[in-house]
């Protein structure tokens, strides 16, 4: 197993991440409506819908991709309903979300831009003697 040690390897940490949510109105983006702080977690996934066709007496499965989707979610410490729920979670609107990872020691950075995100789920969780965490899920149309 090879071990890469080239200098371009940068490990990004969540401490360096800046999440910004804009409203997408078709024209130019306006000011950010929510810059997320107290971020606890970020998740971006691409999923395929696959149909599988088993063949007789064979372990081999034919499969066919019938669709694909993106899922994005971010968790932050909860501090009030107004900032996340009424500003960045309106089902009738589309949002653009940028996630910027910046590595302080090298200055390297990487930005994910998620286009035309539709709000999916807003979850609030916690437990006795713990702090509350809000989890926002969006479904991006595409990202780059």
């Amino acid at each position, binding site marked *: 197993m090879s071990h890469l040690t080239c200098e371009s390897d940068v490990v990004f940490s969540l*401490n360096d991440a800046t999440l910004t949510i804009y409203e997408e109105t078709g024209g130019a983006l306006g000011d950010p409506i929510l810059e997320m702080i107290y971020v606890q977690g970020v998740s971006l996934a691409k999923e395929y819908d696959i149909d599988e066709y088993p063949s007789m007496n064979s372990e081999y499965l034919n499969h066919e991709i019938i669709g694909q989707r993106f899922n994005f979610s971010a968790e932050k410490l909860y501090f009030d309903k107004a900032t996340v729920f009424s500003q960045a979670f309106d089902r009738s609107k589309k949002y653009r979300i940028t996630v910027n990872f910046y590595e302080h020691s090298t200055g390297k950075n990487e930005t994910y831009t998620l286009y035309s995100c539709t709000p999916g789920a807003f979850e609030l969780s916690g437990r006795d*003697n713990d*702090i509350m965490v809000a989890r926002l899920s969006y479904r991006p149309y595409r990202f780059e």
Partner: protein
Amino acid sequence: MSNRTVKNQYEAQLYYSWCPIQEVWTIDVTAPDTYTDAENVADSTQCYDISAGYNLYALVTDNPIGVGLTELECTEGQPVVVTVNGNDATYAQSAQTGVATVPAYSQVGWAVLIVADNTFGAVTSVSITGGSAGEKITIIALPAVSTFTFIGFDQGFSWDEGTTSRAIPNKYVSVDHWKRTRGEATLSISQLYQSFNRALTYIRGRDFTLKAEIHDDGGAAISEYIYFDKCRLASNPVTVGADGADITVSADGMYQKMVVIDGTGADNPCE
């Protein structure tokens, strides 16, 4: 107020009582001179029997006095003055009034006697001056002195309030602000064994109130009273030593809250 004498554990006397500390009234300060008493049930004065006549104390609860301070140059701290109105022990119609001045920056667990001409039989209203949002004061009645039994032959006593502070970080800042959390309030007593029906083996597994009287330098005067409410010793193994050695009991448990009273002044519950 506290003096500057170092306390000596050898001179801590321990007592237990089956009687709990009664909470008579809660004061959740929302703004200066203003409080809510949401934790009091309706007509709360009927819920707690203090009719035999008791001294009441104002106990700093949950947050220290001065939690609302944000200014860079702290102004002189302000005490919270609690005024309690009620009936005396004979239920005389003449209102009983008592006042306690809780000093600025008092810490959680500190209790100040509500000074009245006589003891209270009921509480009908409470008012405050001073205070800031987030502070909480509970009016309590302590168990009567006559209900306490001396534990004795103790070899060591320790308690730990546990941390009630949780740091909330933000990016690279380790403490952005603090949240209050539940502390693990534990206590531990070790003792020379007396008999199954005496002391630690006797009070195991049930709720009691523990009182520690702190004496300075072997003197009779008590410098400080420390009460522990809703104590329960969950475990108290007995160890029998070899011939000539001691039989010892070491009990571990938890408690709900601590009440500390200055013994040098007029707050002394034995007076």
